[in-house]
Each structure stands twice: as C-alpha cells, then as structure tokens.
C-alpha cells in the first residue's frame, strides 16, 4: 500500500517538474510535522488508552475527520487504480458510518483507529517525498486557497477527473499559510461547519448502520491499525490549518491563546446548539481537540521551535476544553436557552449574510419549456452563483413553484450557504429531497419539457436514494474550489500542459458529474464552454472602477434593501415633483423621526469615500430618467457662479428631452442638480458658495442632491438643516467580498477568500479601493504580488478618542501584541499621552479591588516617566526615544488599567488648563512689571503674597465707602502704577474657586465713578502702556465676535511658551468644535517653532 501512495505522489511530482520548488518545501514541512511519538502511538493502540493529554488529542483529530478519511482511504488500501478507488469508496460509505458510534464507550476505539491510519499515512508520504525532494531548501511559501476548503469533502474529484484532483492534492501540500491567526481561525470555523454537515448525515445513517457498527467495533481497531499507511486528505487539510495557526502564533510573537480558546469554545457552543440534543457530543469534542493535536505534531518540528512553549500551553487548554465539554450534560433546559441564543445569533448572521458567493460564475442552462412544471422548490441559504431573485425567476420561468415554508408538498429544498436550520430540520423530517444549486441547474438542463412528476413517487423510492444525494449536496463545490483550481494553474506556471487540462475542466461540472455517475460524461462536455452570464464584458482597457460600476440599483453594494439609502433617494426623487408642486403642505419633520424627506428640496448624501454615493446618485437619476447636472470640486463654485450660472441652469430644460421621442411625459422635471463634494467648497475660489447653495435650495425648482464625506463637519452644519439627510454606511465585509469574488472570477484573478477579506479590511471597506487593488493584482500576474498585498495592510488612522478607547479596553487587548499597543500611541503621539492621562482615571480596571489604588498609582507613575521621556525628546531632539515614550505613556498605563471605560472619554483638560495658566502668568507678569518700581519684588512674591493685599487695598475702600473711597483707591493704584486693566487681572488671578469676586459686590455706580476718576487722573506711568492697553481692549471686544482673530492675538502676545502643546491648546480652547483636529494639525507645525534653541546654539557657537 505504501508503494501505491508513493507512486501516486511520484506522478504528481513528475508532472510538476523541478520548477515547483514550492511543492517540495511544503512537503518537507509536512515531513517535519510527523512526530515519532505519534507513530509509536499508532503502533501500540493499547498505550493510547491511557488518559493522557496526548491521547486525547489523537482522539480529536481522528474523530472529526473520520468519515471523509475513511471514504478516501479504504479504496486505496489494495490498489492504486482510480476505478477501484471509486468502487471502494462506495463500500466505505457504509462501513465508515458504522464506526461513528453515538455511545461514548465506542468512541474511543474508533478514534484510535482513525488516528492511527492518519499518522501512518503521513509518515509514508513523508518518506516518499523525502526521496523526491530531499535536497530542497525550505522557502517561505505563500499560497492562497486553503487546503481545508479545497478538499473539504470531495472525494468526487478523484474519480471523475484524476488529474485535477491530483493536482489539488499536491496543492494541498503546497499550501502553507503564512497568515494571520484570524484568517486561520476563520478557516477552522468553515471546516467545522462542513464537519457539522457530515455529522448530520452520519447521524442519520447511524440508525441504519447500528447493527453493523456493533460487529465492526472491535475489528475496526485492529484492522485499521494494520491497514495504516493511508493518506487522508481531510486530515492533511486540517493539519494545514493547524500549521497556519502555529505559524501565525510564531509570527506574532505573542500567543493570543485566549482568543483562540474563546473562539473554539464559541464554535463549540454553536455546534452544540445547532445539533440540538439528537447528536452525540463526540463530534464536538473531536472538533475542538483537533487543534491541539496537530499542534503537538508541530511541536516536534524543528522549524517551529520558537513556538513550542506556546503550543504546549495550547495543549493544556485543549485538554481543559475537552473536559469541559464532557461535563456538558444535555440538560434540556439549558439546551432551550442555548437554542434561543443560537437563534438570535443566527438571525444576526442572516442579516449580515451577503449576496451570492460567486455571482455569474456559472452558466445558466437553457432547459426545455416548463421542465420544472409541477415541482415546488424552497430555497434556503445563500446560493453559490445565483441571487435569490434570479433563482426565483429561473424557477418560475420553467414552470416551477416557489414555496416559503417546508411542507410535504415541497419537492426540493435548494440548499445554499448558511441555510436556515429550522427549514433544514423540517425538510429532513419530512424527507424532502435537498439539492444544491448545481443540481438545480442540472435539473433544468436534463429534465424533459412539461414533465410534471409528482413528488410522492419520487419520495417513495427516495427512501434509500435520498441519502446519497443529500450527501452529495454537502459536497457541492465550495467557492474555493473554483478559485483554488485557477490559482493552481497559475502557480504551476511552466507546466502548461497541466494548466490547460485544468482550466478546461470546470470543477463544478466535475462534481455535478460525479453526483450522477452516469450523466457525468455529457455534463463534462456541455460545461466545457464557459460563458459569462450577466456581466457585459467590455473592453479591457477600461479602468475597473468604471468597468464594474453598478449599472442598476440592485448592483450597488450595500444598497439593495427597501430601506437602503438608494431606495430612499429614489423615492424622494420620484415624489419630488409631487411634493413640491405647491399642492401639498409639508411640515418639517423632526430630525430624529423616520421620514421620507418629502419636506426637503435637497438631499445630502454623506458617507466615507468609496461607498458609492456618487454612483448611487447617477444610477438613481438614470433609473428615473433624469439628467444630472453635476458640479464637483473641480468646478469653481463661488457665490457668483452659483447665482448666475447654476440658478439659470435650474430653470432651463435640457435639450435631451426634445431630442428624445416626442411623447416625453415628464416635462416638468427632467434634471437634477448634483453638487458633489460639497465639503470641498472652500477657499477663495468657492467663497460664499455654501451660503449661495442654501439660498438656491430654498428657491430651487429642481431637486438638488449634495454629496459630502463628513456630515459632521462644521461647514455642513447649516446646509444639513435644509437637506434630506441620507447617511451612507460602509457596506459589510460579506457584501463587498461576494461582489469582489465575482469580479475576480470574471477577471480570472486567483485570490482566496481570506486574502480578499484581508484586502477589504485593510482598505476599511472602501469598495473603490478594493477594486483598484484588485486591478493592480490582475496586472501583476505573478503570485508574489498576492502575497505582498497581504503585508501592505493600509494602516487606518484612528482619532485620539478611538485610540484611548482601545488603549484601555480589556477586550481589545486580547488580540493585540505589544507592537499593536504601542502603535496606538503613534496614531498621534502629540496628543496621545494627554488623552491617556486625562482618561485613565475613568477606567475601571480588571484588578482586585484591594489593588485598585496600587494599580492607579503605578499607572500614574508610568505616565510620569513618560513625561520625563517626552521632555527629553522635546528638549534634546532625541526622537529615538519616542517608542519608549509610547511604552510609558500608553502601553503600560493601558495594560495596567485595562478594563472598561466607565466615564465618557474627555478631551485633555491639560491643554485648557495650561492655556489658562499661561494667561494668568501673563497677567501676573504685567502686574509685576507695573508695580516693580514700588514693590521691587519678583513675580512669585507678587503672586503669593502681594496679590490679595493689593487687591483689597484698592477694592476695600470702594466697598466700604462707595464713591467716597475712590480717592483712596486711586491713591493706591497710582502708587503702584497700576492700570485699570491691572485691577481686573488682579481680581481675576487672586480669586480662588469658591470665593466671591469683591468687584461684584461693588455697585456699578461706584465702579463707574472709580473708572471715571481713574481716567481723569491720567497720571504718568513709568512704562509705555498704550500698546498694551490697546491690545487688551481690542482683545476684549473681539473676544465675543471672532475667535480666530483672538487666536492670532494671543499667539502674538504669548511669548513664554515652553512646549508646542501650549500653542495647540490656545487654539483648541477657542474653537472647541474643531478642537482635536486642530490640535493634531497644528502641533506638527508648531514643533518647528519650538525648536529654535537647537539652531540658535549652533549659530552662536
């Protein structure tokens, strides 16, 4: 048998030739993963029965993969010929299930068996590979599709089309995922869902096979251990994923093991719920222990030595997990609760699920007329290539009937991704035939016209047959099959022969062909001519963004529903004429109420770039047959221009209506003014543009649509009062991904789901940018490019509020390495320490209560050290210390105080307080200067000692004696050369919180008398003060009116600023709205001005 397998691999290798060094590398890796211990274990099953950690892990793996493994392995036992395999497999299907016992007693045995075979197989493989690729060096390899996805459970391929399947096998080896942990976990999740399905089928079969099982039980153990030496695709694929996990861990340096555990646990929960009570817990167990098992393998691997300790931790956690599951009794009450939870989770999932996975990827066959007549269908889940309504149309077109609930009368349930569990259940119960999308198409293709077979007969003899198709359905092509096979072809590059072979064979057809063994050949033929379905292929020279621009409202990503913005806009535009013809009296809707915007004459579309605002407008206008007159930032939009040209335009009619066929029935409304990028209306060019736009909106006789990015920008504030507010949210990852996958398919780009997800994530769900990236990928056909994109994640800039949120949120820390944490600081290192300092006390840290203050003190101390480092940085220009500051000012306090933020995140008060301090300091300076001749004391002395006494000396006579006290007060003022303004500053500075302003106690009459007397006295001051007073007066008058001027004022007068942050603060304080932005913006600029000393010292030397 080992020979057979070796030969199998040799075939592959010879095909690939030497150029496929990547393959060899991976093979090597595989080899490493096999542990000696494992092998030993497999030899002596008795040992394994010991309840050691290791054994438990074994169980896991074997368990989960059992069915598939078996199916594949058995046929190969004796000979390597394909035909025999296929035959064997059929036989195995029966025996396989027999081994899955719902009873915990048997579980163990079965597992051992399976694990055995696996290990040995791998070993054999290793040896054979060694012989072939022994010399090759390891290179970091990156491939896209995941083995698990590719091989999931399609033994079909091997029989039907041996070549591609071999290829795939090879690819499986190739795949070495150097990816992030999340991606891996994702894969795990998908793998598990597949397993779930398997579990379901098998459980069904259990009933039938119970008897067999009993007899087979013991035999299988020994038998399979002898058998050994088999390759198991699924096993390997799962190993693959585990590889990924391990590498991910290694790369990151830190093990987010908690996350992993959580995730697995969560999955477990889900599984549990899904299966309900009728499934034996063994499936679950197997699923999650699978993880540590392969981890163990890797432990022995020299390459992964770094990760060993971490993996071992994983092992233990895995162990724990297992135990916890066993504890899990199928308590009916708990199950109920879980089910409830599960349902809500499912609903969430339902809400988020995207459109078809690969729209347009399959040819829609033309069947005979009414070929589906008399059949009723029910669709559940998301189908692979067809949108729901497309299927509806298709079925109706051929005379089929669509149901919305499963009943006895349902002939077929069409299953897609994420099917509704309730429907599934019922369908199963009623024994309704479940088919995949492909089978539906097949049905259309093959059914004769007008045939109306009643389901009942079908059902009757479906009794046994049912099982096979339903099983097939689970093995329907995953989206990855397509992409991966494509990918493969490009990977192999030189081996063009193989390429052509593969590309000629549509994997879909392979599979469907297999499902109906007799039909396969003709199917193959028919599917050899791939045609694009509903995408008009235009010239390739077009930019993708243009090429794949949505053509109708349905194609806009994320704008499909009735409540979507596109629809709202559509309705609003449609009814505009009616609403504003003067017949209807409209009331202004409350800004919080849901409304259709009929009151407004203009709409304001806002949202981040790349979500399709402009596109939506264009499409909606097209749909309503309106001409859009567009002004964007490239046009001058000044007040004058808007007034003269645009308003004229608005009263014009477009020529189009005249040229179009004469019977145009909508003469009133034929164009729309689109003001794109209204937030870009700034600067001298567009001065007054916004005001004019608003005026225009008030009087317009055509709808106006404004588009902006930042709805909350101060500039937009006025405009938004006059507009129907439509906020565009970023479309979900799934929505974008499905659309992108279909484009990838059309453009023949091989990119895996995960890569695509990552790309989308890295662009922050910006559809346009994803498209741009993809088109770049298309141009660089080499696979290296793909792997590069993985690394060039676009770093998203976070605002300081988000940063603080992340710094202190315990949840966020779970997935963050120390680098991620310190990167938070660098989003804006000027303001970050201040934000952290301001808000760390508002956090409730996850620490014991008695250590709370200690933790706070430690955090505060770390902040202090951060301040020291910052000072050193600013003073000496030692910017290399910045990472150190990041640690002290953000990472350490964040880690110490990690918890949940219980208070609103505040803008740093330091800026405001420091500004106030600067002001007081200036006032004191003035007072000191003015009184210097008389007091001859320093500023501090004035502040600490004189201030109050001086104030009282002036104010008290006035308070006590009223107007008569003026003379005394004036006397003091004159002796100390104080100005009238100085008195104000005196009172201001000397006033402490909780004290009353003595000047307030003065009657205004007295105050006025005093001021008059002071002005009259006009005593010579020993200093030049005119300038100062003027400045002050101006400042005061200006204060209320224009904040900006005051800023300049203050800037000019502030001479003793130490740090750039001081400057920042003066600005931020005045314009609180734009505070943070300005702070961020100005701090960079100001830095320069704070540095002069360095330059100065040089100059002086």
């Amino acid at each position: 048998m080992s020979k057979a397998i070796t030969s199998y691999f040799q075939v592959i290798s010879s095909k690939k030739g030497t150029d496929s060094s990547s393959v060899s590398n991976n093979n090597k890796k595989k080899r490493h993963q096999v542990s000696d211990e494992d092998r030993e274990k497999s030899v002596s099953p008795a040992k394994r029965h010991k309840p050691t950690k290791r054994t438990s892990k074994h169980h896991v793996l074997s368990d989960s993969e059992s069915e598939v493994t078996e199916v594949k392995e058995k046929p190969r036992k004796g000979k390597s010929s394909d035909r025999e395999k296929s035959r064997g497999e059929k036989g195995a299907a029966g025996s396989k299930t027999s081994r899955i016992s719902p009873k915990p007693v048997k579980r163990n045995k079965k597992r051992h068996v399976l694990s055995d075979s696996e290990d040995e197989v791998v070993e054999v493989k290793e040896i054979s590979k060694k012989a072939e690729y022994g010399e090759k060096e390891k290179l970091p390899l990156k491939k896209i599709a995941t083995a698990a996805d590719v091989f999931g459970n399609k033994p079909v391929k091997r029989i039907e089309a041996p070549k591609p399947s071999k290829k795939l096998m090879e690819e499986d080896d190739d795949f070495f995922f150097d990816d992030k942990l999340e991606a891996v976990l994702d894969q795990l999740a998908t793998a598990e869902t597949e397993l779930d399905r398997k579990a379901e089928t098998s459980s069904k079969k259990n009933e039938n096979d119970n008897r067999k099982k009993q007899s087979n039980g013991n035999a299988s153990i020994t038998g399979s251990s002898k058998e050994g030496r088999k390759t198991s695709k699924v096993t390997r694929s799962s190993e693959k994923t585990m590889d990924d996990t391990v590498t991910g861990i290694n790369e990151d340096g830190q093990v987010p093991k908690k996350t992993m555990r959580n995730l697995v646990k969560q999955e477990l929960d889900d599984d549990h719920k899904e299966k309900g009570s009728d499934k034996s817990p063994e499936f679950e167990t197997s699923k999650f222990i699978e993880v540590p098992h392969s981890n163990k393998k890797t432990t022995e691997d020299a390459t992964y030595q770094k990760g060993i300790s971490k993996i071992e931790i994983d092992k233990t956690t895995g162990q724990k997990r297992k135990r916890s599951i066993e504890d899990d009794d199928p308590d009916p009450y708990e199950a109920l609760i879980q089910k409830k939870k599960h349902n809500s989770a499912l609903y969430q999932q339902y809400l988020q699920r995207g459109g078809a996975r690969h729209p347009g990827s399959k040819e829609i066959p033309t069947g005979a007329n009414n070929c589906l007549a008399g059949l009723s269908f029910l669709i559940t889940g998301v189908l692979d290539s067809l949108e729901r309504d497309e299927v509806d149309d298709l079925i109706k077109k051929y005379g089929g009937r669509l149901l919305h609930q499963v009943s006895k009368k349902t002939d077929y349930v069409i299953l897609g991704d994420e099917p509704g569990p309730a429907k599934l259940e019922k369908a199963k119960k009623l024994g309704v035939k479940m088919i995949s999308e492909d089978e539906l198409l097949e049905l259309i293709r093959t059914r004769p016209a007008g045939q109306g077979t009643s389901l009942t007969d079908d059902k009757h003899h479906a009794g046994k047959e049912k099982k096979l198709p339903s099983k097939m359905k689970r093995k329907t092509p995953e989206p990855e099959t397509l992409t991966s096979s494509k990918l493969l072809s490009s990977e192999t590059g030189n081996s063009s022969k193989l390429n052509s072979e593969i590309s000629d064979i549509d994997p879909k057809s392979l599979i469907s062909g297999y499902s109906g063994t007799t039909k396969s050949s003709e199917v193959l033929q028919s599917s050899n001519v791939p045609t694009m379905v509903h995408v008009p292929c235009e010239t390739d020279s077009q930019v993708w963004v243009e090429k794949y621009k949505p053509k109708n409202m349905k194609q806009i990503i994320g704008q499909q529903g009735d409540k979507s913005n596109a629809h709202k806009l559509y309705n609003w535009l449609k009814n505009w004429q009616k609403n504003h013809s003067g017949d209807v009296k409209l009331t202004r809707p409350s800004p919080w109420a849901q409304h259709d915007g009929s009151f407004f004459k203009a709409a304001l579309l806002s949202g981040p770039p790349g979500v399709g605002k402009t596109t939506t407008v264009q499409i909606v206008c097209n749909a309503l047959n309106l001409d859009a007159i567009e002004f964007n930032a490239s046009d001058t939009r000044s007040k004058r221009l808007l007034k003269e040209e645009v308003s004229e335009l608005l009263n014009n009619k477009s020529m189009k209506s005249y040229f179009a066929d004469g019977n145009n029935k909508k003469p009133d409304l034929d164009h729309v003014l689109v003001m794109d990028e209204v937030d870009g209306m700034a600067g001298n060019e567009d001065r007054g543009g916004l005001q004019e736009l608003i005026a225009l909106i008030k009087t317009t006789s055509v709808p106006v649509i404004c588009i902006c990015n930042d709805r909350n920008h101060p500039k937009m504030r006025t405009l938004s009062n006059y507009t129907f507010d439509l906020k565009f949210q970023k479309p979900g990852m799934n929505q974008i991904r499905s659309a992108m996958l279909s484009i990838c398919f059309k453009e023949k780009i091989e990119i895996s789901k995960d890569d695509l997800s990552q790309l989308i994530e890295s662009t922050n769900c910006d559809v346009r940018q994803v498209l741009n990236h993809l088109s770049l990928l298309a141009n660089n056909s080499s696979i290296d490019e793909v792997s590069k994109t993985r690394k060039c994640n676009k770093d998203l800039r976070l605002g300081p509020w988000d940063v603080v949120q992340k710094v202190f949120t315990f949840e966020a820390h779970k997935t963050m390495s120390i680098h991620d944490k310190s990167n938070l600081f660098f989003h804006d290192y000027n303001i970050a320490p201040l934000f952290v300092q301001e808000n760390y006390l508002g956090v409730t840290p996850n620490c014991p209560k008695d250590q709370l203050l200690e933790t706070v003190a430690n955090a505060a101390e770390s902040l202090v050290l951060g301040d020291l480092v910052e000072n050193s940085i600013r003073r000496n220009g030692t910017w290399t210390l910045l990472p150190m500051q990041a640690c002290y000012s953000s990472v350490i306090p964040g880690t110490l105080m990690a918890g949940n933020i219980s208070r609103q995140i505040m803008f740093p008060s330091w800026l405001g307080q420091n500004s106030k301090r600067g002001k007081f300091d200036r006032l004191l300076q003035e007072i000191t200067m003015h009184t210097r001749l008389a007091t001859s004391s320093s500023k501090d002395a004035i502040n600490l000692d004189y201030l109050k006494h001086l104030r009282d000396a002036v104010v008290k006579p006035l308070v006590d004696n009223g107007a008569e006290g003026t003379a005394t007060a004036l006397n003091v003022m004159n002796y100390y050369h104080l100005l009238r303004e100085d008195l104000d500053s005196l009172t201001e500075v000397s006033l402490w919180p909780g004290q009353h302003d003595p000047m307030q106690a003065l009657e205004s009459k007295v105050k006025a008398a005093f001021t008059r007397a002071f002005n009259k006295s006009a005593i010579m001051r020993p200093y030049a003060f005119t300038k100062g007073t003027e400045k002050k007066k101006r400042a005061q008058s200006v204060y209320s009116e224009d904040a900006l001027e005051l800023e300049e004022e203050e800037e000019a007068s502030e001479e003793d600023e130490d740090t750039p942050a001081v400057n920042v603060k003066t600005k931020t304080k005045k314009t609180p709205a734009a505070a943070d932005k300005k702070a961020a913006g100005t701090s960079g600029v100001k830095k320069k001005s704070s540095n002069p000393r360095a330059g100065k010292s040089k100059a002086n030397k």
Partner: protein
Amino acid sequence: MSLWVDKYRPTNLGKLDYHIEQATRLVNMVQEGDFPHLLVYGPPGAGKRTRIMGIIKELYGSGAEKLRMESMNFETPSRKKLEIMTISSNYHIEVNPSDVGMYDRVVVMDLIKTVAQTHQLDATGQREFKIVLLTNVDQLTKDAQHALRRTMEKYMATCRIILCANSTSRVLPAIRSRCLGIRIPAPKINEITTILESICKREGLTVPHELAIRIAEASERNLRRAILMLEACKVQQYPFTVNQNIAELDWKVYIQNTAKLIIAEQSPKKLLEVRGRLYDLLTHCIPCDLIFKGLLQELVKNCDLELKTQIATTAAEYEHRMHHGSKAIFHLEAFVARFMAIYKKFMETSLEAFM
C-alpha cells in the same frame, strides 16, 4: 498711599533692622571701592533686594534712585521678537531674564553684553563700572547660565554683575565660583516681631506682642508676608486683640483643603477631584514645589512616623522628577495616587491589626 511693606522699606544699608553686622560689612566692601561679582541669595522675604538696592545706593549715591523703565527688544535667531522690561538708572540696569521664558539666553547674551561693553561716560568721580542686576537667577535656563559665565569674566573691567536668587542649588557651580556669595538668611521671629512693632509704632498703632509673634510665625519668617499680614489684620480689625484671626493666604488654604480631601477618601474618583484642584493651583501659577511642600506638610500630619518617612521619600522623588519633566500635573497626580495607595494600605492593615 502705599502698603506698609513698601512704605517702611529701608532705602540704605545703614537703616537695616537686622543682619546689621552683615550690613556693615557690605558698607565696608563698597567703600573699598571695588568688589567682585555678587551672588545674593536667601529665602523670599528676607531682604535681598533691599540690600542690593542699598549697595547700589551706597556706591553711586542718590543718583541711583532715579529709576526709569525701559522696554528693550530682541530678536531670537528664529526671528521671534522679544520684549523685556528693564529698570535702570544711570548707573545700573536691572533685568529679570526669566521673564522671556526659554529665550532668556538671548537676553543674557545681547542685553548684558551691550550694557557691559559700554563704558561710563564720566568716569571721574564715579565708579568705572556699572552694575548689572539680574534677578531670579535660579530660574534661568542652563543655556542662559552658561552664556553668563563667559560674559562675567570678559567684562569684569566695565561692569559688576549682581545676581539675585532664592537658592544657589539651581545656579551653576561655575557661576557660583565666579561670584562672592552673600547669603541673606530669613529674619528670626523676634526680629520680625520687633519690626512689626516698630511699624505699628510709626503708624501710631499698638500691637500686642503675642499677636506680633503669631503673625511672625504664620508668615514662616517671611518679612514681606508678615508686614502684609499685619496690615491685613489692621484692616480687618482694629484695635488688635491677641487672639485675632490672622487671615491665611488663599493658596495655602486651598492646598490644605486639597490635602484634607485626599485624607478623607482614597479612590480613583477622588483622585479625579483632586486633579481638578491641582489644576486650579497650577493655573494660579503657584510654584509646583510649594504645592508639593504644602501637600506633604498637611498629609504627614495624619501619618505615624514610619509612614511619614515613606511619604516624604515618595514626595521627594516625585518632586525631583517634576523638575525634569514638563507637565507638573502628571507628577503631582502621581504623587497623590501613590500616597493614596500607601495610605489606604496602611489604614487597612492597621484596621486589621485592630480587629
């Protein structure tokens, strides 16, 4: 009309009320005709400026009393315009370079150089040097102090520099060694009381001796503060009584209340409240070391000896760090947080022991 503290300030060395021996030495020194650069230092309210003005008057006679204020303009290498107020007579010029903050170096270099480079016009009958009086020298940046070093030696012939500082610890040793240090200690309690009594006498008031002592003690041997307090007391209530309430300084009271808050409750929430109060203190330009001192004094009142040393060490550490940092609030807050942690732990353990 002026405050008593200015009204009764002695104008020449002969009229000084205390440190009389030192005053005669100064007179002798001046009469010798020449003296090195001086570094006059001592706590606030001890009479440094009074003595310096006395020296100048002793040197140049009453001509030095005709003061004028001038504002001078400078430009930093980064083209920033600076303006600084100087007080000068024909014979001396007084500047506080720290008025311009971090740009004090420019002032020291430009202003002092230009003043020092010019010779007296009529050298006959006058001294051949001018006096440059720099105040708040301990607040000068290191750069400025280094700039001063060379200037002091180079222009020895044409000018004498008198430096005035609260403490020499923040003056470069290089500068200290170039100067003749004159320490003006704070007046003793009895010296202050006699001065207070003499002022009252001159004002035609009578002050009970005990009240004078109380005021002197409350002023922390700061004569300026004592006289101001006396006047405040007089305004508040006259005739004086022995147990009369002496108005504490607002900022001191504020610090004390803050400390009481800290003692009352230790929690992050309270720390937030304390932060607000610390900000108040800082915005009122109360020097940070005084805040530290005031807090410490009040906080240790509630601690036993062992804890006292621990708290004092902590305070010293944080205060030291504060001078190397730039944002005082960080350090103050960290100190308060640390104190809270220590104090709470202490309270809990002692409570357990008690149980």
